[in-house]
């Protein structure tokens, strides 16, 4: 089973939940943990993996052979991202806008374009002391596109039979989140019971609904804010599977890189119950 931990709003506790979920399941199932928040990966702070491999993540960007180019401009017309422009009798490429779709290369009537790798990040993989297969993507500073790194991270780490995969998603609801949760069996939405938390939970819920993925909610920092998150979950039928209270000792411990279930042993069975509830929801739909 593949579980993606997402949120909409940033800073709600995705990584706190994802890492403790993984650690709670160590004796139950083989585990793969992918930190897909490639703009700010932080799960390693809790899981402390030892990296064994490192690979570059690249986007294939066009390189125009000026001797072959006849300035038809087809490349610029077919590019949906305006990453290649024909102006002033020359073709200009903007690698940071290129999504690597290959349309310009395929459509060039003179076959004047070949693709060259434009490195946008790295993928690092290893193992934790508990035996969790761990990998993360790291987007290069200054690069605007996270999706190629996330795709490469996922492609390089197919889920093995019998393995449970936990994907720590980026915040938001845009392309990097879609790239993370596509192909997941379940999306666990971590929120906080505030108007801001609710606003982004709604967006994240709508994304899971549009993608046809089952979802459930973890309310973190429970006790602050108001009851609107609960009211929303009840209204749309989203199960609230776990509540983590607003608690100074938890906040201080997590801030020092201690996983929640090591701070509070009583959370280990709760995370296992959470996993069982998610598996039950997935089974019920199958």
């Amino acid at each position, binding site marked *: 089973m593949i579980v993606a931990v997402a949120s909409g709003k940033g800073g709600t506790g995705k990584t706190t939940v994802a890492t403790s979920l993984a650690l709670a399941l160590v004796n139950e199932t083989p585990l793969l943990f992918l930190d897909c928040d490639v703009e700010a990966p932080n799960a390693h702070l809790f899981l402390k993996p030892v990296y064994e491999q490192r690979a570059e993540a690249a986007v294939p960007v066009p390189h125009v052979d000026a001797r072959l180019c006849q300035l038809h401009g087809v490349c610029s017309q077919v590019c949906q991202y*305006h990453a290649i422009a*024909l102006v002033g009798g*020359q073709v200009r490429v903007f690698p940071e806008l290129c999504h690597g779709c290959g349309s310009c290369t395929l459509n060039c009537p003179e076959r004047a374009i070949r693709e060259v790798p434009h490195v946008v990040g790295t993928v690092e993989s290893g193992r934790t002391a508990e035996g969790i297969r761990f990998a993360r993507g790291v987007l290069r500073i200054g690069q605007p596109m996270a999706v190629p790194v996330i795709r490469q991270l996922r492609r390089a780490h197919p889920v093995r039979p019998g393995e449970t995969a936990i994907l720590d998603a980026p915040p938001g609801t845009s392309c990097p989140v879609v790239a993370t949760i596509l192909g997941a069996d379940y999306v666990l939405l971590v929120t906080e019971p505030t108007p801001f938390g609710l606003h982004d939970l709604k967006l994240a819920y709508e994304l899971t609904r549009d993608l046809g993925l089952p979802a459930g909610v973890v309310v973190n920092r429970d006790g602050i804010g108001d009851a609107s998150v609960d009211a929303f979950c009840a209204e749309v039928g989203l199960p609230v599977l776990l509540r983590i209270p607003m608690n100074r000792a938890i906040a201080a411990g997590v801030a020092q890189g201690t996983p929640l279930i090591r701070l509070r042993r009583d959370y280990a069975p709760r995370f296992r119950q959470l996993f069982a509830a998610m598996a039950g929801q997935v089974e019920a739909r199958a």
Partner: protein
Amino acid sequence: MKVAISVTAPKVNAAFESRFGRAAAFVIVDTETNDQEAFRNPAANAPGGAGVQAAEFLAGQGVDAVISGAFGPKAHNVLAAAGVRMYQAGGGKVAELVERLQQGALDPA
């Protein structure tokens, strides 16, 4: 000389828009004939690469100069490659901006 000015709506009397790539429209003025024509900016709502697309559009219209509030690095790159001169302005009506350009009173971007 053909001069493009970024504006807030596709009308020749529309107000100046200080953004280039995301401007709703451009008014193109031919300073010899005094013809004015407004064009929707095809890049106004582009998800990305708006500066490149807007610059390519104006280069395709054969403009010699553009007046806007600011030009992003990619738009600047394309307009420079096309030999289009760029000028910065803080505001003003289309006719005034063209006049100030002709007087040499606008800063090149």
